[in-house]
């Protein structure tokens, strides 16, 4: 038994969990073409959720601050991007891939820009005064979430908003009897690129080194002469921007969004960071992919269980590893 554990550990340990999940699903689903479609959908969802969750996880790791208002960035990102896409609709329908892509790029840039500014405001006004006070932190960020949701309702109303997609991301690729939605492929690639970028930032740059050190022991980082509060604002803004981008991508993926989107995604994001282990980017990716795959597989095999499945997954993983699959070293 120990040797088996060792063997598994050598091949990547908990990182193999998504693979195991995919294999089990392959057997249960039976039809390879459906399995491929679901797996791609799960991975695409996983990477979008990863974007939404990464900031939450890093901010918690660095400052021990859990932002219950994080989902506001996701919703705002989605709605800001939707508004830009609607305003630029004439570019989207134009017979030019460049104009199509530009409209999408502008939508994403608007979401990111919004995330950066809102993140800065949120950090300075809402979070800063309640550092190190968990109870008030939870309450205040929750209050901020209530206010943000109301602002979204006041601006965009309660009715669903249809999000136009650029023409070149519509439709599916057909390979044999497997069909893959183009947008899912796009979301997967973009999400993967951002993960690689984040990974590079964290592991190959001095700022990344500071963040990783700060997650472990912020007092010591300060004792070495670095102002961690400034670093924290940066991370907070980055996290908010990523959440907004995740929301924007999600808007294009769902094509129909309601103000309830933030709340729904928040639950998934929480489950992801709990499963993955707070404070680690690798853990967050792992959690996001597991959750994305599970949601799609279960949604196909037993649609009624889809939402509860993630909850059951979380409980099971918490019993097994109370700190999550790949927590940051503390």
């Amino acid at each position, binding site marked *: 038994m120990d040797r088996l554990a060792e063997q598994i550990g050598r091949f990547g340990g908990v990182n193999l969990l998504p693979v195991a999940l995919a294999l089990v699903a392959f057997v249960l689903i039976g039809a390879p073409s459906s399995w491929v479609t679901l797996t791609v959908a799960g991975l695409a969802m996983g990477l979008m959720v990863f974007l939404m969750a990464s900031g939450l996880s890093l901010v918690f790791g660095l400052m021990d601050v859990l932002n219950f208002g994080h989902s506001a960035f996701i919703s705002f990102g989605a709605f800001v991007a939707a508004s830009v896409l609607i305003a630029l609709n004439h570019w989207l329908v134009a017979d030019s891939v460049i104009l199509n892509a530009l409209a999408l790029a502008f939508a994403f840039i608007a979401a990111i820009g919004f995330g950066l500014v809102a993140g800065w405001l949120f950090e300075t006004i809402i979070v800063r005064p309640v550092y190190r006070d968990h109870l008030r932190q939870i309450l205040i960020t929750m209050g901020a979430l209530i206010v943000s949701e109301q602002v979204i309702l006041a601006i965009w109303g309660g009715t669903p908003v249809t999000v136009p997609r650029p023409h070149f991301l519509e439709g599916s690729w057909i390979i044999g009897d497997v069909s893959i939605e183009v947008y899912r492929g796009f979301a997967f690639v973009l999400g993967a690129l951002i993960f690689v970028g984040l990974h590079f930032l964290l592991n190959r740059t*001095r700022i990344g*080194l*500071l963040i*990783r*050190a700060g997650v*472990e*022991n912020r*007092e*010591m*980082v*300060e*004792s*070495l*002469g*670095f*102002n*961690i509060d400034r670093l924290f604002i940066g991370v907070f803004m980055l996290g908010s921007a990523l959440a907004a981008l995740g929301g924007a991508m999600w808007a294009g993926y769902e094509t129909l969004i309601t103000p309830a989107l933030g709340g729904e995604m928040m639950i998934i994001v929480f489950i992801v960071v709990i499963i993955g282990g707070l404070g680690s980017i690798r853990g967050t990716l792992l959690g996001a992919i597991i959750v994305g795959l599970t949601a799609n597989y279960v949604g196909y095999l037993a649609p009624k269980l889809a939402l509860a499945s993630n909850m059951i997954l979380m409980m099971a993983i918490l019993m097994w590893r109370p700190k999550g699959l790949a927590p*940051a*070293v503390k």
Partner: protein
Amino acid sequence: MSLLSLEDVRTDIGQYAVLHCISLEVPEGGVFVLLGRNGAGKTTTLRSIMGLWRPKAGAIRFQGEVISGLHTAEIARKGIAYVPENMGIFGGLTVEENLVLATEKGKFDPDRLARIYGLFPALEQFWTKQAWSLSGGQKQMLAVARAIVEPRALILIDEPTKGLAPSIVAAMAEAFRDIARTTTILLVEQNFHFAKSLGRDMAVIEDGRVVHSGTMAGFAADAELQNRLLGLAT
């Protein structure tokens, strides 16, 4: 003029006053040893100097400049390094990353690196290992090395010999003697023999107050005083 001076420093943790009235003059050069029983306030004194606890009253001066009230990072940049009791090693980072983080520009000064290798050969050997995998003694070496990666005027070291094997304690003493040639060390230590062999000046803290200060030679010679202040059987 002394390098570091504390004037009537009072520090509260939560609602409890831990330091009541600490006054210290740490001269430049050599090792200054802070002695005292457990819970006397030695660690709190170091943390107050470092700005990790904000003193409620009193002033801390470093090179003539008031540093109490400054942010920890600013205090560190004035040229004070801190080696906490738990060593403050970043376990998820490699030995190299731990050290490179302590450099100002992200690059090593070759001479200083050579000196660190000379003092602590184990660090060179485990250069690319993650720090959590080091032994306790090696972690302590890494923590001290991190404090001398850049030139500093003062290093605060909190109980470096705690839980270490005698051979490593001896190596550590050797390293401290070498470091003290260029840098002042403010050392908190329970191991009196270790402290005696290194210290030039010293002070004893009791219940958040300085109850004795003077030269180490004088204190070491006065068995009655040691017994009264530290409860040491001689």
